């Protein structure tokens, strides 16, 4: 695992704490945006080989809605905001008040996609800025892009720069959900090295 060989449990704990802080900020942002109570659970931090990565995050060919940002700066990486289709539809309907919004068959409503992109951007932005505050590192996120497709296809794309130097990714898994609902709404995943 070359680059990640020196990684100790202690380091994973630090990453977990960073993920925690980031998720708390993202949850606050989402809560304000939706005017709803949002729960956040403690993230797990894992070292996962590429072989297993897509399956670890659910089925590799499961359809998801995703926002992807490239992060440049002191610690370049990829940041994903990945949401299940049903959760994304509910989120967009809530924000735009467009009850007919669907992600089942394209073309998707442009206004809805734009709203989804914006929500993803706000969440990723608040996650990233708390990460920057905590680590005193500079991050420059790219303009976000949206894709509704297979989870594995989307994830592998973000893994490309990382795949040149290793076969493992650090997954900081964060779950944010609307209170009193059991199905998961979304989970941002960031892989930084």
């Amino acid at each position, binding site marked *: 695992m070359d680059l990640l060989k020196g990684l100790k449990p202690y380091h994973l704990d630090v990453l977990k704490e960073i993920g925690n802080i980031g998720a708390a900020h993202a949850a606050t942002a989402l809560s304000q945006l939706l005017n709803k109570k949002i729960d956040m659970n403690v993230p797990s931090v894992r070292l996962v080989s*590429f072989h297993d990565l897509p399956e670890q995050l659910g089925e590799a060919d499961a359809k998801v809605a995703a926002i992807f940002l490239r992060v440049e700066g002191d610690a370049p990486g990829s940041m994903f905001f990945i949401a299940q289709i049903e959760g994304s539809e509910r989120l967009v309907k809530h924000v735009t008040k467009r009850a007919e919004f669907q992600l089942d068959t394209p073309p998707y409503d442009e206004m809805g996609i734009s709203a989804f992109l914006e929500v993803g951007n706000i969440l990723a932005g608040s996650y990233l800025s708390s990460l920057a505050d905590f680590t005193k590192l500079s991050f420059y996120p790219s303009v976000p892009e949206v894709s509704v497709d297979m989870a594995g296809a989307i994830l592998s794309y973000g893994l490309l720069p990382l795949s040149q130097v290793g*076969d493992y990714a650090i997954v900081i898994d964060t779950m944010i959900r609307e209170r009193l609902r059991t199905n998961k709404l979304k989970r941002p995943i960031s892989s930084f090295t």
Partner: protein
Amino acid sequence: MNATVIKVGMADFKIATTLNTIRTSGLGSCVGIVIYDDRKLIAGMAHIMLPTSGLNKQEKINVAKYADTAIPALIQRLLQNGASRFTLKAKIAGGAQMFSFSTGNDLMRIGPRNVDAVKEKLEEMRIPLVAEDVGGKSGRTIEFDPNSQLLQIRTVNKGTIHI
């Protein structure tokens, strides 16, 4: 009757015979390469991520990750399992552009480069490419049946095709 589906992960390759089908899920800019012997009914599948091992920055190389190293390794594995060198054929799928970043970063346009690298290597190794479904913007899940020699390709919005 197919007993089991052999799953090929990202940056991975495996072999299947008539008892199995072989599948890889969620190909984005990666390319899925199937090389098979249509007389002996044996097939191998690789899921490559990058075009050339020249991009490798590790000490130890994972040959299944790169087009230029995965194809020779896959052929060798097929020959070890009884395939004959001169009846091998190939089918490929993948190499999509999942996001359309305007940045000059070459890595973000990896899909087409992967496809080119795969085709180049297949030609160099003199393996005829009999079918392909590459490019576009959609992720693909592919499954190959060594019996029928058909490659099934599924996308989330355009249904399923066979090549």
